[in-house]
């Protein structure tokens, strides 16, 4: 029945798009799933787009497992002005080029005028930032448990004068992704507006320019070309790393060489230190790449009963067996409340609590996840690390098992365990 409804909705959508008016649409990608490897990119592609009043901007989100928002408004615009010097630093050297401590004035501004989608400390979504909120003036509720009123959750056209214009968490609509549409009001004042993700922070961001009608704006083709250029720039180093890793030749980054060597994960091939192990997620040591590879490499493994199976884990992932049907990191309930999937964080099936690291600890996070007897749901819970983690498990029963990461849908592998 649901499928039939979807079908008729698609037909209706198709019909309505054919009859549509003369206003133009420009598409901005939120995150991207690369053609050659499962990925997530903490970027908007392109990060600059120009439209006329009356046009529509479609933010097309690819579901990579990462939650995102499109957060705008005059408070966001002022935020961008404060951040201007840091954008310059970031463009040169990424996060590493930013000051260690967040500048006090910026922190104070965020606390006073902005919201977050998620609170790392309580490990819960902030309802004032995770739910949609469109205010013509004033700030969103300061109490994180208090979402904006239902009336303020109805999305008006974007005028550029609204104080707060937040999509909130763009929900999971199946693995194909979801769209968030911003209709620019026909009386919007020309100007440039900042948009950012209130989950990943102001460095996942872009600018929307409302150009006067007298000025021409780039066509969708030009916009797509700009997007592709940015994607390819971000993806090139990742693609190299991915190819090396699938061939078993991933070169260990210089700064983590010592700690990896201590763990016995290094072998030397042609004079180069190569990671000797399996990967659960992969990243590159490149300050200008805001993307990660979300795959198990290799995807199919063979092991013996009781053997210590270890993965080098780059990024935040889980290693889980006998997983239930895919469930996104956050969900929106009927009353609008956004909640985090509780299955993610809690170790399951007898796995110990994952080891945590202090923010300054750059050594690898070595996590022994114990044993699994081959029965029932088993999961490490989300393992975080500042640099990378090494996660191990022993399996005591022969069999063919599927394993997966609970966050990133394409992260699935097969493990054959024999006596």
């Amino acid at each position, binding site marked *: 029945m*649901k499928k039939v409804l979807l079908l008729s909705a*698609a037909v209706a959508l198709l019909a309505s798009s054919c009859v549509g008016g003369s206003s133009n649409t420009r598409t901005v990608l939120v995150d991207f799933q690369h*053609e050659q490897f499962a990925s997530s990119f903490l970027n908007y592609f392109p990060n600059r787009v120009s439209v006329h009043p009356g046009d529509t901007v*479609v933010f097309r989100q690819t579901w990579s497992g990462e939650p995102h928002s499109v957060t705008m408004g005059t408070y966001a615009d002022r935020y961008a002005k404060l951040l201007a010097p840091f954008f310059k630093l970031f463009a040169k050297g990424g996060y590493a080029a930013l000051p260690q401590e967040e500048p006090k004035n910026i922190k104070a501004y965020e606390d006073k005028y902005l919201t977050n989608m998620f609170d790392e400390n309580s490990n819960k979504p902030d309802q004032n930032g995770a739910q949609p909120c469109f205010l013509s003036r004033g700030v969103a509720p300061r109490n994180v448990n208090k979402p904006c009123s239902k009336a303020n959750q109805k999305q008006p056209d974007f005028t550029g004068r609204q104080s707060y214009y937040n999509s909130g968490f763009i929900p999971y609509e199946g693995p194909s992704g979801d769209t968030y549409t911003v209709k620019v009001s026909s009386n919007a004042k020309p100007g440039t507006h900042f948009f950012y993700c209130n989950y990943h922070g102001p460095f996942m961001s872009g600018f929307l320019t409302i150009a006067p009608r007298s000025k021409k704006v780039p066509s*969708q083709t030009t916009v797509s070309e700009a997007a*592709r250029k940015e994607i390819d720039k971000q993806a090139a180093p990742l693609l190299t790393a991915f190819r090396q890793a699938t061939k078993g030749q991933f070169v260990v980054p210089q700064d983590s060489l010592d700690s990896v060597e201590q763990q016995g994960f290094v072998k030397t091939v042609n004079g180069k230190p190569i990671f000797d192990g399996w990967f659960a997620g992969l990243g590159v040591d490149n300050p200008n790449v805001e993307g990660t590879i979300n795959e198990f490499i290799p995807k199919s493994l063979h092991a013996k009963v009781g053997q210590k199976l270890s993965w080098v884990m780059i990024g935040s992932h889980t290693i889980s067996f006998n*997983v239930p049907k895919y469930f996104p990191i956050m969900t929106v309930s009927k009353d609008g409340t956004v909640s985090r999937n509780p299955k993610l964080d809690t170790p399951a099936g007898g796995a110990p609590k994952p080891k945590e690291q202090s923010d300054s600890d750059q050594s690898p996070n070595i996590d022994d996840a114990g044993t699994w007897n081959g029965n029932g749901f088993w999961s490490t819970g989300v393992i975080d690390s500042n640099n990378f983690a090494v996660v191990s498990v022993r399996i005591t029963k022969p069999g063919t098992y599927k394993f*997966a990461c609970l966050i990133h*849908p394409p992260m699935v592998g097969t493990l054959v365990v024999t006596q």
Partner: protein
Amino acid sequence: MTAEQSDGARWRVRDVMFWIFFVAYTVGGILVLAQGVGGIWAHLSKPFLASLQLKELGTGYGARIASRMARASFQLPSPLSIAFGYAFSFFNIVLALGLLWLRGRDRTARLLAIGMVGTAGVFNLAAQSAYESLPLLGWESVAQTGAAVVAALTYAFALVLFADGHLVPRWRSWALAVLYAPFVAIIVALALRMQEATRPLAILIFFGLAVPIAGAAAQAYRFRRATTQVEYAQARLLFWALVPSIGIGAWFVTTQGSHLIATAAQTAGRGIAPDLTALRIFMPVFLLVPIALFAGLVRFRLWDIDRVVNRTVVYGLVTGASLGLYFAVLVLFHRLIPIKGDFSVAVSTIGAMSAFIPLRRRIQDFIDRRFYRQRYDAQQTIETFSSRLRDQLDLEALAFELRGATVRTMQPSHVTLLLKGDGGTMEWQWTYRGRPRE
């Protein structure tokens, strides 16, 4: 033969509906196949790939198609698999069109044509993996599932209706409805539960079990009740063409079914391409079915089928037995004589080879006796007849004997014997009717 054929070229609503559906279904299938070709082309042409990678960033369904082809270009099956897949699809579509050209008003031929076009799409792994290179939208999975159900149902009914266009057994329509309803319900229910990960399993259940078992049962029923030689040969032809598919279907479902079902939930919603190994093996075997149906419907070489089946069974068994013997001798030699390598290999090879010819005759004999009673009997009959020939002087009795021998060995539909006698011509005419297997 059927009602449709006899009432001339008048077009009825039913015909128009059929053609509209057939054209839409075929166009849909060809579009899916074309998407796979797009992926192959993108693999070969960098500029085309670049244009796809730009287009996929836009909106609308065009962006989706571009994205699929771009993704597919990086995850192509092996060239052999692509070549075989497209040959399979092309062959099925051509066969379907050919069948409609030759027997376009025959109900069975129409169902079969739809089924063949359907399998051309459903079984093409390159096209399917291109289609599934992006997680499916709701309506896309409805279309995909729907196409598979249509293919499965039309195929099943074509196999049951083959060749006279009537359902078996010859019951009243309500009784037939009661008999067939559960079957249709099972196929539809299975199809609706089908998702990315379980699709190969579902296809094997459809085309490796449900469809061929229904067909084989109907055809077995038909050849038991056949009243003419043609009917008999048609039923038999199809029955034997279905057996290998059932074998492979049963084997895969029993050995891998539970594992596939157990892990299906874990890949659900993750947009992961399923394991298609089983299908790769199944496809060439299934190809026998449309070929047999085509041959049966246009009555091409209908009479050779027994021979083909017989030969296949005999040579299959002989090969198996000789290989077994070969390895047995090899192992035995290794046990008995501690000489390594060449000598024992040579001896066992010679042993297996020398066993081959007598073995073939033995097995042929056994098969003939066991399954092809008539053929075995024919040899006996001819031997008996030639020995009688020596004793029999009465011409009329001799002619009777000859006629009997001919009927028993060759099973013609009628026999005419012309004898040049003194006083002119003597003639018997005898038309064979009834079950041939007596």
